[in-house]
């Protein structure tokens, strides 16, 4: 996002920043079901959307909310839902549907501790693997993350852009700390924000195939009501959108659902790197933990330990190339996270055993304080 103009400075919670980002991205439909610590996103949008002619609805449960945003998205609206752990679990079947039917939409998960009802008011990062594998079946997944209110604003916009571009549900994972921390957010001038809209078919209805196979691998779905009458289903389907049992068509479809994300990985993945060039210890941290890690890199450098940080902005597709590059430079990698090693596992795989990968998992609903990470790094050194 370019900041040609200074933008407006406002104080807000991460959850409000998410709502603001959604509006800026062009979201005009929200369906949700209340759950801590995400409810402020719904509350804010319930005020903002009707003022803009947009639609807000509180549904009867999370399955319904997820279904409603898919229905709305098929009419051409940019649509979003927000939830937390238990609700994220309930949405999974319909998230898989949106993946299969290739319906763009955004799902925000303000992560709290689990399993089950867990820790409703305390932060965690326990849903990062669920974001990848929570729904049954094989397909490519896009999941973003953010560590501050500012980033939440920006990543919400990016989530919509990626959803529209790749015709897929996009997940934004923030955590309770980010969602509930009030801080400064610079809202750029609308003209400085890049907004992507899904493509419209350029053929006439007679020649239109909703799931036409192209080199781009991304279908063009016409909004319902615009004269293109076609079928959308969660069953395996061919280019026409009708169910098929043809083995070739099915193989093509399922491979394409993965390939259409994989082939654009370099486009999608974004990382922040901090002092990695000469680092001996690499830290891999995301979300609110990345903020701690930034401070820790400086603290360690003052002590003379050469630490660097790789901070992914996109968790899925996983930034395997960046991790591998880091693994070739450093002596060890430390992965602090608010779970028991869900991303550390990916880091180990991606570093191909070149260096030891050390987990630092905290799951008591407390953030990892800088001192705890510093100690872990000292131990590794």
């Amino acid at each position, binding site marked *: 996002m370019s900041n040609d103009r200074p933008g407006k400075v406002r104080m807000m919670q991460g959850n409000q920043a998410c709502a603001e980002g959604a509006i800026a991205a062009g979201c005009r439909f929200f369906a949700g079901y209340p759950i801590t610590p995400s409810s402020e996103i719904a509350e804010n949008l319930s005020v903002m959307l*009707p*003022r803009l002619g947009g639609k807000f609805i509180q549904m009867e449960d999370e*399955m*319904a909310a997820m279904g*409603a945003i898919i229905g709305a998205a098929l*009419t051409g609206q940019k649509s979003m839902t927000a939830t937390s752990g238990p609700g994220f679990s309930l949405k999974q079947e*319909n998230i898989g549907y949106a993946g299969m039917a290739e319906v763009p939409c955004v799902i925000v998960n303000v992560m709290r501790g689990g399993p089950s009802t867990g820790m409703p008011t305390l932060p965690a990062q326990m849903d990062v693997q669920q974001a990848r594998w929570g729904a049954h079946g094989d397909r490519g997944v896009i999941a973003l993350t953010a560590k501050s209110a500012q980033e939440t604003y920006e990543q919400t916009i990016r989530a919509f852009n990626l959803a529209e571009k790749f015709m897929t549900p996009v997940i934004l994972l923030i955590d309770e700390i980010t969602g509930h921390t009030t801080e400064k957010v610079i809202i750029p001038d609308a003209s400085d924000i890049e907004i992507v809209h899904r493509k419209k078919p350029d053929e006439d209805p007679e020649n239109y195939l909703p799931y036409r196979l192209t080199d781009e691998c991304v279908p063009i779905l016409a909004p319902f009501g*615009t004269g293109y009458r*076609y*079928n959308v289903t969660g069953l395996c389907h061919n280019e026409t959108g009708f169910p098929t049992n043809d083995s070739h068509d099915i193989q093509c479809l399922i491979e394409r659902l993965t390939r259409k994300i994989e082939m654009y990985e370099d486009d999608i993945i974004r990382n922040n790197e901090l002092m990695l060039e000469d680092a001996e210890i690499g830290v891999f941290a995301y979300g609110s933990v990345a903020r701690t890690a930034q401070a820790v890199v400086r603290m360690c450098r003052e002590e003379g330990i050469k630490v660097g940080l790789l901070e992914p902005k996109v968790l899925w597709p996983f930034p395997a190339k960046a991790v591998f590059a880091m693994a070739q430079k450093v002596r060890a990698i430390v992965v602090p996270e608010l779970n028991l090693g869900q991303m550390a596992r990916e880091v180990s795989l991606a570093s191909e055993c070149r260096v030891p990968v050390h987990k630092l998992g905290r799951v008591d609903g407390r953030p990892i304080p800088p001192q705890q990470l510093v100690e872990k790094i000292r131990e590794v050194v």
Partner: protein
Amino acid sequence: MFDYLQYVRQENFPHIWCSGCGDGIVLKALIRSMDKLGLSQDETVMVSGIGCSSRTPGYVDINTLHTTHGRALAFATGVKIANPDLNVIVVTGDGDATAIGGNHFIHAARRNIDLTVLLYNNYIYGMTGGQCSPTTPRGAYASTAQHGNLEPPFNISGLAIAAGASFVARGDVYNVKKLETLIGKALQKKGFSLVEVVSPCPTAFGRRNRMARPVKMMEQLRDTVVSVEKWEKMTDEERKGKFRTGILKDIEKPEFTAEYAKLIEKMRPEE
């Protein structure tokens, strides 16, 4: 002769339903009522869940959305709220709408959102091979009730009435002309409207309940259906083993998308 072909996707025929399945008969009644009302194919969306009944959209040449089991009403709610100009028809089954989707069913009715719901009630889970559904009669046989069903059934129309629907009717596939009229009324109603259609499943229900022949199931409909008008005059004794068809509720009340439009109007900044 009625020309169904302009409304169906001929390339998908013959359809997947079994010989004598009532679902095709309901589809035809729906097509005739759409034709009579002149519903635009471009501006009509059909949303379904999962089940034999929910395969209906694949055969109709309109905008069609075949969703997940039980969730048709949730998807349809999104479609309708996002674009209230679209006519939204929901096709669902007894299991789809009142077991896994029961919550969405009562809440869509409560909200009184302008959807027309055709619920094909065949008293069974047809698609998965004849397991019990919430409408399987007590004592009837199902693949998961091989000693006879112990549970009392839902009265689906009664459920919709209690939940707040503005139009509720029951029809059946033996009395096809009446069914067509009821569907037409439901399509015209602004608000949540339900037509519960009793539609035989000879394969999964009939075979286990001494009605394997489709004709037998149709005869049973012929012999047990009573109009609401006649029902009123019958004694409890006479009503035994019968059920009524016709309009069971038809009231005016605020409809959700219309109320939302008013809210948007109110919020509009003054010029």
